[in-house]
Structure formats: structure tokens, C-alpha cells
């Protein structure tokens, strides 16, 4: 790809220009002083203005499968969350355990993990964290253990499926791995990680969770049936969610990409949502839903794909891949282990989305060393497990963590960076150790 480098302005070395743009963009993103979408788009613009990429090359570098899948799922969730069905499940789960605090903690964590596997993690915690705070207010109990468990559960649950976490969407799209393959290869290990994590949380907080009988009775007064605000819309949403997830599972056999299914599902639900209403109301509803799509995230991805493509064109990433292979001696097991642990530590400290965006071309260029693209599959699982679970290592490890921290702050119980890390980092390392054992036994030995 080196030959495709264009005329870089001022006769500067395109490699250094591209790498500098990437490093500056990543550094400023980490400083969290500016909006990350704005930064990634500025970086993308610089790649083109400086002549590293032509506009055509930049556009070709955008993974529209990732963009389409994210946007489609955002539309579906924006509509279905209006029905109140997610709150219904959260409250029902708290009442099943008769208002017992530890029981509620476990139930809400499991609900969070399952929702996170099928919805975006950020959306999941936006739905569950406020309900959790309502319940802990009713129990008159500190929310920290509940929110802590929820953060970990959302990242563990998100690991399980192709659509659970943005890194998985990117990996699945780049490596052409299906929803079904993710389900069969990653989902089996997540219940074990979840179980071990919950046991550890029991030892940390379990004994300290007490609530009076009056407080428990107050939780039982929550009426989950009142949470459902729109029964017809709920039926439509459940139908579309069912169709979309079934579609994902069988997509590969029909040579369909997940983005086509998600976008089709989104369009179908947009149509059904306002079926039979006057045109003016329909337009109003469409515009409302479109405004709820997180365009900031979408544009962040667009810019990021272009920035990484720019660096990829210079051949630096290929060179890094060769260096990595030299370090691991070209040994497959060592390479897989290195990807897993480096991804985990990196994702705990920096945004895992730009990290994964950079790792994807790096792993792709290892294909000649290990024979073929198919031989790389265990490496993709290592990257997915590391990047998703690594998000649990610190409060800034994943967007969902910060969302929960924001709620905790507003409820008057802020989650401190170091306090969280003290509890979470070890649990994260433990989950990676379990993942490593799993990878070793299943793919490497």
C-alpha cells in the first residue's frame, strides 16, 4: 500500500505526518478536554488536507458495516426504550428477590449483563442505573456496590455477542466473523467470569448490605405493571428485536452483513411505530427518534476509521505487526496471550475504540506469518476479550463506566477514580486470567 501515498505538503515524510496526526488526536482524546468526535473528524480532515489520503481513499476506509450496525441498533433501542419494558424487567427482578439487597444487586447485575449483550452498554446503564438509584433510595442504602457491580456486568455482558460492545462490532466486521461465531466462541465463557466476579463482590460488599423490613416493603410497593407505557409499541418493538436478533444469527448463511439487518429492522420499527397516525405526527416522531441517535459516536467512528486508514496507508502498522511478531518469536500462543493482556491493560487506561481500530489492521497484517486469515480467528477472540473486559479496569475504561459514575455523582454518592480502580482492577485481571485459560484450552494448546 506504500505506493498509494499521495503528495504530502511541504515535502514532509507522509509516514511521520500520518503517525503524528494519529498520536496527537489520541493524546487530545485522552486529555478529555474536547469532544472526541470533533477531534477524530479534525484528524481525518488533516489526513486528507496534508495529502496522506485522497478523499476517495478516506471514504473507502470507513467501515460502513460498523456505522450501519451502530446506527440501526441505536434507532431500535431509542424506540423500544420508550415503552418502559426495560424498567419493567429491572423492577420485576428486584421484586422477585423480595427486596433483599444482595438479591437485588445480583438480579440487577444479571439483567444488566443480559441487556448489555444485546443492546449497547451505554444504553443499558442509562436504562438500569436510574432504576437502581430509585431502588437504593427506597432501601435507604448506599448505591455504590450496586453501581459497581453494574459497571462490571455491563462490560462482561457486552463481551458475549457481536453487538454487545463496539470493539466486537468492529472486529466482527473487519474479520468477517458472524454473530453466530461470536455467540459460540465468546458467550460460553462470560457466565463463568460473571459468577466469579459476583462471588468477589460478595466478599467485598455482600455482608455490609442490610435493609430494614419497612425498606424492603417499600421496594415491594413498586408496581412494575405501571412501567409499561405503551403496550402496542412494546409488541412491535419485541417483534422487531426478535426478528433482528434471529436475523443476526442466520445472516452469514444468506451472505448478509449485520448492518443490513440492523438498518432494515430500524426502518421497519420506524414504520410500525407510527402506523395509522396522520402524516404530520409520523414526521414528528421520526425526527424525534433521529435526534436520539448518538450522532457524536457515529461521527467519532467515521473520523477514527479515516485516521487509522491514513496510518495504515503509510505501512507503519504493518511494521508494528512485524515488531510484535519478532517479540513473540512468531509463536502463535505467545502472540495471542500478548494481544489479550496488552488489549486489557490498554483498554483499562484509554478508550478501547481507537485502540481496537488500530489493532485490527495490525492483526490483519499477521496473516502471512500464521498461514491465512482463517488462522487468525483465535487472535480476534483474544482482542475482543481483552478490549471488552479490559474496560472494567478503571472508571475511564469504558463509556458506560463514566455514565454510571455521572449518575452516582448526581445522586450525591460520587464514585472516586482510585476507589473504583482499587476494587475493579484486580477483578479485571482475574477475568483476563480466566479468559486466557479459556483461550488456551479451546484454541491454543
Amino acid at each position: 500500500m506504500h505506493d498509494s501515498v499521495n503528495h504530502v505538503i511541504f515535502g514532509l515524510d507522509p509516514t511521520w505526518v500520518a503517525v503524528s496526526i494519529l498520536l496527537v488526536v489520541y493524546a487530545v482524546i485522552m486529555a478529555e478536554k474536547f469532544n472526541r468526535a470533533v477531534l477524530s473528524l479534525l484528524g481525518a480532515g488533516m489526513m486528507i488536507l496534508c495529502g496522506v489520503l485522497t478523499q476517495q481513499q478516506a471514504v473507502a476506509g470507513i467501515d460502513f458495516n460498523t456505522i450501519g450496525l451502530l446506527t440501526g441498533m441505536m434507532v431500535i433501542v431509542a424506540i423500544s426504550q420508550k415503552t418502559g419494558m426495560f424498567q419493567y424487567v429491572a423492577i420485576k427482578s428486584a421484586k422477585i428477590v423480595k427486596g433483599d439487597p444482595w438479591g437485588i444487586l445480583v438480579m440487577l447485575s444479571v439483567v444488566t449483563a443480559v441487556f448489555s449483550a444485546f443492546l449497547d452498554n451505554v444504553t443499558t446503564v442509562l436504562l438500569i442505573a436510574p432504576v437502581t438509584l430509585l431502588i437504593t433510595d427506597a432501601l435507604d442504602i448506599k448505591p455504590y456496590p450496586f453501581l459497581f457491580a453494574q459497571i462490571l456486568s455491563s462490560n462482561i455482558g457486552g463481551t458475549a455477542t457481536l453487538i454487545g460492545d463496539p470493539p466486537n462490532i468492529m472486529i466482527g466486521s473487519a474479520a468477517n466473523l458472524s454473530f453466530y461465531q461470536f455467540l459460540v466462541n465468546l458467550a460460553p465463557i462470560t457466565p463463568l467470569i460473571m459468577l466469579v466476579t459476583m462471588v468477589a463482590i460478595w466478599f467485598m460488599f455482600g455482608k455490609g448490605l442490610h435493609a430494614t423490613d419497612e425498606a424492603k416493603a417499600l421496594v415491594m410497593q413498586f408496581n412494575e405493571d405501571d412501567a409499561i407505557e405503551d403496550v402496542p409499541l412494546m409488541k412491535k418493538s419485541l417483534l422487531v428485536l426478535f426478528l433482528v436478533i434471529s436475523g443476526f444469527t442466520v445472516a452469514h448463511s444468506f451472505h448478509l452483513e449485520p448492518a443490513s439487518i440492523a438498518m432494515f429492522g430500524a426502518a421497519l420499527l420506524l414504520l410500525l411505530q407510527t402506523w395509522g397516525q396522520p402524516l404530520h405526527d409520523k414526521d414528528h416522531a421520526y425526527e424525534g427518534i433521529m435526534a436520539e441517535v448518538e450522532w457524536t459516536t457515529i461521527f467519532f467512528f467515521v473520523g477514527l476509521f479515516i485516521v487509522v486508514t491514513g496510518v495504515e496507508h503509510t505501512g507503519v502498522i504493518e511494521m508494528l505487526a512485524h515488531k510484535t511478531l519478532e517479540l513473540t518469536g512468531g509463536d502463535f500462543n505467545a502472540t495471542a496471550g500478548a494481544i489479550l493482556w496488552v488489549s486489557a491493560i490498554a483498554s483499562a487506561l484509554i478508550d478501547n475504540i481507537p485502540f481496537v481500530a488500530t489493532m485490527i489492521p495490525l492483526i490483519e497484517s499477521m496473516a502471512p506469518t500464521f498461514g491465512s486469515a482463517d488462522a487468525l480467528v483465535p487472535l480476534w477472540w483474544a482482542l475482543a476479550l481483552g478490549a471488552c473486559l479490559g474496560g472494567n479496569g478503571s472508571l475511564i475504561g469504558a463509556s458506560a463506566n463514566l455514565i454510571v459514575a455521572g449518575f452516582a455523582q448526581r445522586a450525591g454518592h460520587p464514585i472516586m477514580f482510585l476507589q473504583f480502580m482499587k476494587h475493579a482492577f484486580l477483578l479485571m485481571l482475574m477475568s483476563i486470567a480466566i479468559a486466557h485459560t479459556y483461550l488456551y484450552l479451546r484454541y491454543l494448546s
Partner: protein
Amino acid sequence: MKANLVMTKELVVCHPDQTVLEVLKVLRERSFHVLPVVDENNKLLGAVNMLSMLSKLVPEYILNGYLKSIPYAPDMGVLRKHYKEIIDHKVVDIMEKNPTVVGENESLLSVTAALISFDRFEYAFVVDKDHALIGIVAASDIVRALSQLDPEVLFDA
């Protein structure tokens, strides 16, 4: 017609260091809907009404999350608990900091548009060029002026 022709000029105001309880008493006893908050130089700092107090009683995670409505939740004593806390606070903690502000020479059309676009109180506060409060225009003042329909006053001569 301009804002200074329809506005109320005799104003009851409150000061930022008064307690919420004191201000609530004034609002209730004199049946006011809103009180402007001004400093010692009569400069407008904000405004309070019953809603600005009530909005501090509802936990923020309910107002700022996906929980826009919570028909399934019991009362939980949250409102009373927060009410007891808030009444000793100073007005400055609960006031609306950006009420609708208009100039004394603004047209009635402009005042009406401002009320509809920005208002949370049904009132626009009329200030001079030093931001000192000189009057209040209520939605009802505008309607009253319109119903009197005196063409010479209505259309700026």
C-alpha cells in the same frame, strides 16, 4: 407598543441570601407566582417560583436520565426529606438563573416572542441597560393590552 407601557412597576423582590422558607412565605401569603431575585443595586440575578423549589426536591437521576416518568414508583419519602433540607438553603441555590429578560423599549411583539421561546415562568423581566430590574410583563398584561385595542397605542407611531 413597548414593554414599559404594559409592565408592572411596583415590584416585590427578594435577595439572594434570604432563605427558601422566607421566600416561600411571601409567594404563598401574597399569592405571587414569581419573585425576582435582585442584588443591593437592584440588578436582576434570577427568579424563583414554586416550580424552581420543587425541581430541587426530585432526585437529579430521575430528571436527567431515561426516567422521564416513573408511574411505577412509590413516594419513598424522598420529597419530604429533600423539602426539609432545602427550606434552610439560600434562594440563590434554587433560583432560575436565566429568566426571560427584555429591554424597556422592546416591542410587544418581541416580548411575546421571547416569552414563548424562552420562558419558564409566564413572565418577562424588564431591565434597563445596567441590567437593573424596572418591571415585569406577565402574559396576562399582553393579553389585556391587546383587548383594549387602541390602534394608536398598539402600533408604534
